[in-house]
């Protein structure tokens, strides 16, 4: 084979390699774009979760307000009714008044307890109180069975995907380096050609290998 023929073949090979590096770079970029798009999707889900969390917090807060005030008033009317009864036992005078007072307070206490979710009443030192923390936890769990209420996992996934997309895009520098080295090889004499071609090939293989590793991971 003459030197010219060898040179022509080499030039053809280099042209193919340049095109291959460009196409591989484009494919990797396209994949990075898809990963980036998925990260944006996770961002959207995070915002939706925050909105759902806001809606559930609002509903839970209004429910708690009702239960808390009713429980507080229930306990105070109940305490009062009990104290009236004790006072009445100790003091026989004006029994009708004691009876009226006791009945009144008992009715008020009953009216309040009717407005309560008694599953969440707890006793502490003989007094009934509304177990606010348990109620909040329970309601949140109930709502969370239907929809996500915490944006944090989506934010984490989005960050991971963005890191992945950035990494994939950064491999383009290797493909660009390969294109540059192949172009240099194309423009130099035959002996230098091999060195530049080898360097370009290494850059290409590094980029393609890393990209393949990330895509398959």
């Amino acid at each position, binding site marked *: 084979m003459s030197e010219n023929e060898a040179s022509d073949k080499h030039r053809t090979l280099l042209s193919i390699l340049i095109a291959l590096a460009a196409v591989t770079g484009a494919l990797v970029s396209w994949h990075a774009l898809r990963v980036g798009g998925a*990260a944006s999707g996770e961002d959207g889900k995070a915002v939706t979760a925050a909105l759902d969390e806001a809606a559930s917090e609002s509903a839970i807060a209004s429910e708690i307000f009702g239960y808390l005030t009713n429980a507080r008033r229930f306990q105070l009317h109940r*305490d009062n009714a009990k104290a009236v009864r004790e006072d009445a036992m100790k003091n026989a005078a004006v029994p009708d008044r004691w009876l009226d*007072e006791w009945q009144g307070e008992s009715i008020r206490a009953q009216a309040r307890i009717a407005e309560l979710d008694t599953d969440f009443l707890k006793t502490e030192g003989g007094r009934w109180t509304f177990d606010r923390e348990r109620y909040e936890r329970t309601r949140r769990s109930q709502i969370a069975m239907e929809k996500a209420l915490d944006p944090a996992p989506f934010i984490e996934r989005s960050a991971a995907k963005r890191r992945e997309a950035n990494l994939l895009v950064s491999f383009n520098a290797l493909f660009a380096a390969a294109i540059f080295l192949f172009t240099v090889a194309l423009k130099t004499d035959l002996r230098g050609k091999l060195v530049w071609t080898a360097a370009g090939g290494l850059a290409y293989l590094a980029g393609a290998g890393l990209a393949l590793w990330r895509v398959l991971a």
Partner: protein
Amino acid sequence: MEPRPANRNRLILRLKDDKAFKTTVTLLLAGLTIVTSLIVIFNVQASARGSAAGRDSRIFGIRYLTHLDRAQWEFAAEKDALDFYKELSGLMIQAQAYEGMAGAGDALFYKLTRERLDKLRSVLAAEGELTRPPYFNPQGGVPDLLQYYLDRIYIPAAEILERQEQKKAEGGFWGSKSDAYTAGLAVMAVAVFLLTLSLVIGGKIRFFMAGAGLLLVAAVISISAVTGTRDWSGPADESIREYARAAGHATRAQIIFNLTGDPGATLSAAAEAEANIDRVLAREPRYHAAIQIRARLRTLKGETLFYGGKAEESRRELEKAAADLDTLLRASPTDGYLYWSRGYAAYLMGRQEASERFIDQALKLLPDQGFALGVVKAAALLCGGKAAEGGASLDEAIEYAFRKPLASDPIVFRTFIHNLERYQELGPVDGLPAMIRRLKEAAVSLAVLKKSRPLTEQSEIAPPRFVAPVYDKRGEITDVPPCDRFPKSTARAYFLLELKGMRSGQSIVRKVYRRFPGQPFWIEQLLLGRAEHWEGPAEARLLGDVENPIPEAGQVLTGGDYRIEIYIDGNLKATSFFAIF
């Protein structure tokens, strides 16, 4: 033999050689692939960080609203406990009164009832937030709702909102970086085109094409390098928390000033806020939101000192406020509120022309604030010796308030009225009393008549004469001797009002103002005011009274000087004074 050319000339000669030129440009183009890919990498990273910050900003915005909603419900629950506490206190007072009046058996019942209610009240007090210290002082009996609001609602909200602002600013920062890279890539495409063109055309023009391409490449690389060195640096978490606390204290100081004008309480709250903000600015000297709070505090201090009659001290604070505002305006030249504050500071410093300029700028940027800004401009013009223009500006502002009722916030009217009254007291200005009267009549006309000016009418009213009625044994008034000073336990201050030429259906409005001794402002007492329509005869002599309906004040009028104004169909017809000592 030809002379050996110099190195530079050798290069030019080589480039003139077509093959060498093409080789050089081709290698350059290949090199640009690397540069472009690096710019793309930076662009993608900046864009990703911008998107994440934008998402976080939206989430903080949602959390801000969630917090407000939740905090309002919490407040409602606490308020319910407080109301119950008050209810029990009322029942205890009732039981105590009955105990004193009842026979032996009933007295024991009431005594035990009172004791029982007292125990219940103690239990309730321990459960509620608004029924125990620091928000409630059992001796005084008045809860500090403002402090609760600031601690539980405002300050956490300010913190979330500030985080949202920071994320928004961060998103903007990364977005602008990404935009710069994108623009660089677009220019790079043009450069590549020019370089490629230089490969396919002949003659000297190819050098021009290649040169232009190279210049563009150099510009893109330089701009990208500068863009790459810029990094986002927001305030630290602790600084944001401290900033929010300072914003809360500053709001407290502002509310105290607006409601009472009390210089001592205002300056003390402002000093607390300033201590917070100084700590923030010691750590983050370029934190603009914190500088803004400091400017607000300095303006408030300057304003408080100004209306307190301490012009020199006021000027020192206002100069500092102006310096802060100038710094902020350099960074945000389209923030209308900064121009507003700057204009108001200049007005208080007596620099009326500067004030007018800043207010005009603010008006351009904040067209919805036509009323408030218009009034400041009117006052600045008047105090700067331009009475006619000031009057026209005030009319324009009032017409704006008429067209846009939201802008005619009664608080703004009240604030301007008491500020201008005090301004006149400190250094009389020709035409200012007329301007104050126009504002007062406009406020009443807008509220009662839904018009921007009072109606024309012919009534005659003598200034209300305060009296101390003398009663006979049957409880009927036998005499009304004049008296304009009443002791502190007074529940009602009586006055005689003589009216002539009244027509049925005319609007009659009474406004009452109070000034504590040593305080700068006559503050309007909304609960003591009345607005009615006249249904009596054309001529009448009435015995009216000023009574305090606020339960917390124990149903008596609090000490201080009082001023009463009577408006007929929006016209200020009579003014009178009395004092509770």
